[in-house]
C-alpha cells in the first residue's frame, strides 16, 4: 500500500478543522495506514507539535518562502519531497483547489476533487464517492493510483479522527529551488456591511428562487415582520443585488442563528458550510429534490414568490 500524506492547514499555531478530517479520510483508504502530516510555513513548531498529537509522523517544512501558503511555492516544496507513488490528501477549499490539480500533473499522479466518501482500495483502484450538479446526484469515481494520487477532500463531511501521537521530522533542509512566477502580496479583508449577519438570531436568507432584484423587497418585509435580518446565497451577491457582507457560505460569512429560513436556496455545501451552531432550518423551495431539504428541519415545497407574501401577511396579523 502506498504511503499516505495529509497536508495540514494552520494559522497562528492552530490547526484547521480539516487536519483531522483528512486523517479520517486516510483511514478509510487504509485502516492500518501510518499517515504522514505535512506542515509548511515559517516558524511552525507549534503547528507541528499539534499535528503530532494525532499523526504518527509529521514532516516539518520550514522556510521563509513558505510563510504564506502560495500554492506555487508549496507545490515546489512538495515535489522535492513526495515519493512518486504516494497518496496526498488536501482539503477541497480555496487552497486545495489552487494546489491540487497542478501538483497532480507535476507528480504525474491521478487527481480526484471534492471527494465526499471513500470506499477503500482494490488493487490499484481507489474507490471514491463524489457529487455532481450541486449535490443533486452522487457518483462512484474510481482512480488508478498506480502512479500515486492527489485527492481533494470536501471539508466538513468526514468525522475528525483521533489518531495516535507521533514524531516531528524536520525536512526543511531537503528543499530545492522555491522561486515562483506568482508572488503573494497581501490579504485584503472583506468590507463590513450595513448589518452584521454573524450576530443575527434569525435570518431570512434569499437564494436564486427570488428571480428578480425587485422581488427582494418581499424578503425585507418578511424579515421585518419576524424581527429578522436578511442574508443571501452567492448568486444574489454575484448579481450585485445585495452586498457581499450579507452572503452566507464558505466564501462569505459564517452565521450562527437560532433560526435560518432558506428561501429559494438549493443548499450547496459551500453555502451550508457557512451555517453553524445547529440552527432550526426552514427550507422553502419549488424543487422537491433541492439538497437543502436534506439538511433542513422543516421543508415546504413552494414557490417563494407566492409563499413569502402570504406568510408575511399572516405574521403581521399576529
Amino acid at each position: 500500500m502506498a504511503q499516505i500524506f495529509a497536508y495540514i492547514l494552520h494559522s497562528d499555531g492552530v490547526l484547521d478543522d480539516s487536519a483531522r478530517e483528512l486523517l479520517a479520510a486516510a483511514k478509510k483508504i487504509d485502516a492500518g495506514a501510518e499517515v504522514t502530516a505535512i506542515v509548511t510555513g515559517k516558524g511552525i513548531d507549534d503547528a507541528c507539535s499539534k499535528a503530532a498529537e494525532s499523526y504518527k509522523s509529521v514532516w516539518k517544512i520550514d522556510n521563509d518562502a513558505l510563510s504564506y501558503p502560495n500554492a506555487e511555492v508549496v507545490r515546489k516544496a512538495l515535489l522535492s519531497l513526495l515519493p512518486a507513488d504516494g497518496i496526498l490528501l488536501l482539503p477541497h477549499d480555496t487552497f486545495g483547489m489552487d494546489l491540487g490539480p497542478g501538483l497532480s500533473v507535476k507528480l504525474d499522479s491521478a487527481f480526484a476533487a471534492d471527494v465526499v466518501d471513500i470506499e477503500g482500495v482494490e488493487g490499484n483502484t481507489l474507490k471514491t464517492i463524489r457529487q455532481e450538479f450541486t449535490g443533486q446526484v452522487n457518483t462512484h469515481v474510481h482512480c488508478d493510483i498506480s502512479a500515486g494520487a492527489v485527492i481533494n477532500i470536501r471539508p466538513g463531511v468526514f468525522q475528525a479522527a483521533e489518531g495516535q501521537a507521533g514524531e516531528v521530522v524536520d525536512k526543511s533542509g531537503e528543499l530545492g529551488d522555491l522561486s515562483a512566477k506568482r508572488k503573494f502580496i497581501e490579504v485584503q479583508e472583506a468590507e463590513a456591511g450595513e448589518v452584521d449577519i454573524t450576530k443575527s438570531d434569525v435570518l431570512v436568507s434569499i437564494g436564486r428562487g427570488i428571480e428578480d432584484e425587485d422581488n427582494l423587497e418581499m424578503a425585507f418585509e418578511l424579515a421585518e415582520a419576524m424581527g429578522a435580518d436578511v442574508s443571501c446565497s452567492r448568486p444574489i451577491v454575484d448579481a450585485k443585488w445585495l452586498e457581499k457582507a450579507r452572503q452566507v457560505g464558505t466564501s462569505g460569512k459564517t452565521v450562527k442563528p437560532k433560526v435560518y429560513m432558506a428561501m429559494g436556496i438549493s443548499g450547496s455545501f459551500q453555502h451550508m458550510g457557512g451555517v453553524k451552531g445547529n440552527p432550526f432550518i426552514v427550507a422553502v423551495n419549488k424543487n422537491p429534490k433541492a439538497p437543502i431539504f436534506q439538511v433542513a428541519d422543516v421543508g415546504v415545497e413552494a414557490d417563494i414568490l407566492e409563499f413569502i407574501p402570504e406568510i408575511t401577511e399572516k405574521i403581521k396579523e399576529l
Partner: protein
Amino acid sequence: MEILVCVKRVPDTAENEIEINSEGNDIERDDLVYSVNEWDNYAVEEAIQMVDKHGGSVTVVTVGDEESEEVLRREMAMGAENGLLLTDDAFEGSDGRGIAALLKAAVEKGNYDLIMTGAQADEGYAQVGGMLAAMLDYPYASLVNMIEVGDGKLKVGREIEGGNMEVNEIDLPCVLSIQTGINEPRYVGIRGIRKVASVEIPTLGASDLGLDAGSVGEDAARVKRIDYFVPEMGEGAEMLEGSTDEIIDKLIELLKSKGGIK
C-alpha cells in the same frame, strides 16, 4: 493582449431537475436545457473587457461535439472574435487531465498571453485550469475575482475563505480560473447570435493537434465515473403538507416555539 478562454456546454441546473436514467450510467439528457457553464461566462466577459481596454483579441475554445458550437457562438456574440472547436471521437471519455492535454495542444498552436477558464463546471472538480497551467509550465491562480493589467504581469485577487481577497502578482503568460461575481456578464440577444451565425469556426481533431490518440480519451483516463446514484438520504426535512393556509399556520407555530418570530 491575446486571450484564450476555455468554455464548456453543460446542463443548466437552474432550468432542470437532474434525474438518473434507468441504467444508472448517466443522467437523463433527452429533455435537458444546456447552456454555457456559468463561470465561463464571467471569464469571457472579463476577457472582452480587458481587450476593450488594452487591445488584442479574445478566442473561445471548447472540447465537445457539434452541439458545443452553439456555446462558442453565444460567447462570440458577447464579443469574442474567434472560436475554436476541438472535436474528435478519440476525445470521448477524457478525464480532466485528458481535457487539459487537448487544451494544451490548442494553446501551443496559437500565441496567447493569457488563458482563462471558469473556476469549475458541472462536475465540480475545479481542475482543468490548474492542470493546463502545470502542463504549459505557466503560473496559475484559481478563483480569481479581480484582475489589473501591469507590465508583463497581472495583479490578481483570489477569493478565499470568509470573503477575503488574496492579492498576488503573476507573470504573463499565465492561466487564471475565474470566479463568478468578478463582473456582470453582458446580455446576449437573439440578434447578437444571428450576427455571428455564419462566422466560420475552425475544428481541430487529434491529428490536427498532433496528439497521439492514446494520450486522451477513455483509455488514457485514470479517473473514471463508474455510475450515478441517488444517495441514501437521511431523514431529511419534515415536509409540511396541506393547504397553503395550513402550512403557514403550522410553520408560524414552529417558528414561535423556536424563537424565530420576535
